[in-house]
């Protein structure tokens, strides 16, 4: 039972990292991206590659994954962020779909549809991480570190600049903010740190395949951010916990047919998203949002 809880704990941490990093884009920069799962995947695949072929040192793997995801996101974001706000969603959607196709087809690097197996254990200073408890602590430590980084950054001037861009881009420009650069930096930060979730995920399961990095996952993470509360530090973590635990909780409700649990779960969080936007756009954690003036 305890091991089961640790297992759930690791997944909550992984998704909390994804949600928190996506929140930098959605909640703070106001840039709506559906490509987050793609960077989750990039992080995981790079981690697997490095761990198997180069070194399974945790530091090395983390560094390579975060850097790769960050740089790739910079390269993509620079041209992509030139389109208008509303259209960036579609661009991110296209990026997500393209990435999934690449994940499925680039057999040499990603193992194609079959994925990558036998990912070794992560090596840290005093040994390797192998027991469920150790993995949980690792995941928790990563979540804590990322929450700290994000918290520091968004509480300071960078956070204010991002929120200014989010709330009123033209006014931000009038005050000297380089909006394009700010959005690009936010994207790089967000995607780079999302790779950390990929690293933990790949190590923990020692097996990854493209199914975990599809549009469904992007949507799930987005739902976590929105339901938990975008634009707050802890909202995404709450959302992640809620939406990770939900399928487990649902399976205890006896009158629901087991085969439909997945659909019911999705239906419920779709419904939650709708109701949230109508009644409480700030999410569970967020305060009721004030009225917005037009852009």
């Amino acid at each position, binding site marked *: 039972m305890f091991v089961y809880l640790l297992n759930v704990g690791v997944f909550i941490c992984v998704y909390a990292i994804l949600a928190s990093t996506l929140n930098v884009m959605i909640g703070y920069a106001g840039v709506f991206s559906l490509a987050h799962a793609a960077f989750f995947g990039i992080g995981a695949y790079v981690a697997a590659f490095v761990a198997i072929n180069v070194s399974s040192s945790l530091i090395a793997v983390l560094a390579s994954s975060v850097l790769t995801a960050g740089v790739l996101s910079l390269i993509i974001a620079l041209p992509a962020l030139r389109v208008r706000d509303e259209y960036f969603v579609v661009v991110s959607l296209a990026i997500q779909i393209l990435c999934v196709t690449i994940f499925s087809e680039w057999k040499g690097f990603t193992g194609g549809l079959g994925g990558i197996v036998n990912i070794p254990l992560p090596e840290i200073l005093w040994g390797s991480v192998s027991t469920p408890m150790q993995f949980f602590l690792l995941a928790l430590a990563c979540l804590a570190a990322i929450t700290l980084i994000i918290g520091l950054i968004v509480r300071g001037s960078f956070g204010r600049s991002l929120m200014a861009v989010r*709330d*009123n881009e033209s006014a931000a420009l009038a*005050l*000297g*903010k380089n909006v394009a650069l700010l959005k690009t930096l936010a994207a790089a930060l967000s995607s780079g740190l999302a790779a950390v979730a990929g690293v933990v995920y790949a190590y923990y399961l020692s097996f990854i395949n493209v199914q975990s990095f599809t549009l469904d996952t992007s949507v799930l993470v987005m739902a976590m951010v929105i339901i938990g509360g975008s634009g707050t530090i802890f909202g995404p973590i709450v959302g992640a916990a809620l939406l990770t635990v939900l399928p487990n909780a649902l399976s205890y409700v006896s009158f629901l047919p087991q085969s439909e649990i997945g659909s019911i779960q999705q239906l419920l969080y779709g419904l939650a998203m709708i109701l949230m936007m109508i009644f409480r756009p700030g999410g569970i954690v967020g305060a009721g949002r004030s009225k917005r003036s037009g852009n």
Partner: protein
Amino acid sequence: MSCGSSEATVTAMAATFPTQASSEATGKVLRISGLSKRFSGIQAIQEITLDLHTGLITSLVGPNGAGKTTLFNTITGYIRPDNGTVLFEEHSLVGLPPWKIARMGVMRTFQDLRLFTDMSVEDNVLAAMEPRSWFWQLGGRQANNARREQAAAILNETGLGTKAGILAGSLSYAERKFLSLARIMATNARLWLLDEPAAGLDPPSYDLFQGLLRSQARRGISVCIIEHNLDIITAISDRIAFLDQGRVIAEGTPNKILEDPKLIALYFGGGHS
């Protein structure tokens, strides 16, 4: 004379731009020449030639649709003109993006305010004081504290001292207008373009407003303000420029402009599309 920036930024800017003394010597902070812009068949502004004097408040008046806001948009880089030049302290602004123009020292407010509605009042002002886009600002903790103090001072001056922690979106109408002004006061801009900043304010607020503009002008800041209200125009203008149908049809001291019966008729008579 500049308010709201750290030592480092001020020194850096002074090194790259002409000093205040040189633009005072020529007296013209902004020189517009032959500026034109056409939008799908409509000539919004036409051959506009106008100089703004350093340290003076110039009112831009004219009927609706005369091109006043378009002129602001063109000067500040939101619109690219078809022809013409804009020189700010001898530097050309045409073709630069709005944020670069803002950092050079030309800043504007909007008719619809465009406040950062989901940020606190204090954060609105602080955001205006932190133009750099990197993850941190120069100067470290000391500069940070200095900025916070300055922000508090500005909020007090504009009557928003008690509202520092409140979300900008929850402010009353008058408070929002003052926050818009506070934001630009917090920058180190030397030229302000204000688009109907006082419209709809009650008389006591007007007075506070006028007082603030006057004191900024005394600090060497040049102001150009789009305004319809004759009381405000007569009370604060050092110069008036009259726009109609995209052209500058008159420019000069208030006495000269306001005593011209043709202009008064144009302003009150209206009937232009």
